[in-house]
């Protein structure tokens, strides 16, 4: 009886966990609009990690191998030796997605602020997906390329705005 109950409740608990996970995944721009089958395939390769408060998640300048998604909990992003706080992350936030394409060193340090449940999706998992299901793998790569394109466009606009400002300052006659 106990076994049956635990199996039933165990199943329900797992189902509840999966639903929560799917809800988080659908909010991530990289996986937006993916079918249930695709999300299920993705869920199978994700690494679930638990972090205690104050525990280091990623460290600045160490190799970046993939992205992390915060399923629940809060984390702090800092930079430099003085640990200047850049931002705070919480449920559904993600970081390091561009490391899926390019193994560059991490640009900041992320430390858990509260107990965090985090999902990891790494370059090797993406390469595996591309080999097993090329259509799905390419879909993720295209989505990542789009995100990169958007960021590049945004950066270009910022550079243009800054250069206009510089020109404006240069041409401004001193009073």
């Amino acid at each position, binding site marked *: 009886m106990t076994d049956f109950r635990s199996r039933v409740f165990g199943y329900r608990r797992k189902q509840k966990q999966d639903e929560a996970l799917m809800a988080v995944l659908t909010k991530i721009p990289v996986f937006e609009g993916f079918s249930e089958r695709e999300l299920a395939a993705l869920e199978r390769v994700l690494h679930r990690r638990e972090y205690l408060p104050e525990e280091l998640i990623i460290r600045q300048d160490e*190799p970046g191998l993939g992205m992390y998604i915060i399923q629940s909990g809060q984390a702090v992003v800092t930079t430099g030796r003085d640990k200047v706080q850049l931002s705070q992350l919480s449920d559904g936030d993600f970081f390091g997605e561009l490391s899926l394409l390019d193994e560059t060193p991490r640009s900041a340090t992320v430390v858990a602020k509260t107990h965090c449940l985090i999902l990891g999706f790494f370059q090797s998992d993406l390469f595996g997906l591309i080999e097993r299901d090329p259509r799905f793998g390419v879909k993720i790569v295209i989505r990542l390329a789009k995100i990169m394109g958007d960021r590049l466009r945004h950066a270009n606009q910022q550079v243009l705005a800054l250069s206009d400002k510089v020109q404006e300052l240069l041409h401004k006659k001193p009073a």
Partner: protein
Amino acid sequence: MNTPTVRPSRELAPLLIALLVAILLLFIGGAAQVVILALLLAYILDPVATALEARGMSRTLATLLIILGLIGLLVALGFFLVPTIVEQMQGLQSGSTSAQAAAAIRDIERSLKDNLSFLGLEDFDLLGRIDEFKKSIGERFFAYLLSDSLGLIISIVTIPFLTFFFLKDGREMKKALVSMVPNRYFEFTLDLLYKMDSQLGNYLRGQFIDALIFAAMAIVALWILGVNYFVFLGIFAGMANLIPYVGPIAGVIPAVAVAVLGSGDLGSALPVVVSFLVLKLIDDFVVVPYVVASSVEMHPVIVLIAIMVGGELFGILGMLLAVPVTGFFKVVLKEGIATYRKYRFT
């Protein structure tokens, strides 16, 4: 000019680790060999399962198809090859040396006695020794089959069974293992596993395919030359080819011996040696560049010591597994150190 210095400790470390693991496996016994063989098979067959998955098949179905195909292939090979091998081994065991060969051997024997009389060779019976050796090979083969038949049957059943599960659930097993690694070393472990997989996977698969191709070429060459027991000798040469440096020589010696003893003419050794040289050239310049994508470079001394230790501990299987196992530890150590340096573990 800066000359690179090789630290002996770094060169020897993989060998020492492999040696420790070999001793550990020796204590665990035959079960470990079965598990290692199943793991190797699953590792070699993994790209086939992945390719089937890419064609829309589920992993379970893909694995089932591969295992059924493998069993089918083994059964078919059994039907065609086992009777031939048994027949050839029986021939080797019972067949006495031909009259021509006996005369040639008697000549050699006489010459040895005349020139090396100071060694006390008056009672030396070379022909008797050769006949005795030939019989002992066959006897040992059948004694092994009979004495260890239960173990052999268990291995034949267990290996495909284990291979099926390693192939089907290998990814989940790897993920479960990685999940046990502490958070701080998790990315490092993942990175190391990925690099090891890409370096070793191609090497092991390439070696396996190369051995198959070499065995097939040797069987055909020996059949054309009319050498007896060509199937057995060809398979032996293919397997021996897996062992660097000593393997190709070890592969040609039995073929030469059988050719000379079968014809009684020492000159019949030449076509066998030449054909094996040609096969080795084809293997090195045509087959290896295509099938062995990456090689795990190791010092010849390390390779030879590893082969000797493997042979001493596990016999022929140990000799065959010695190089890939030592290569595995070399890659683990090399990539481990390189990856470790990128992280600032405190």
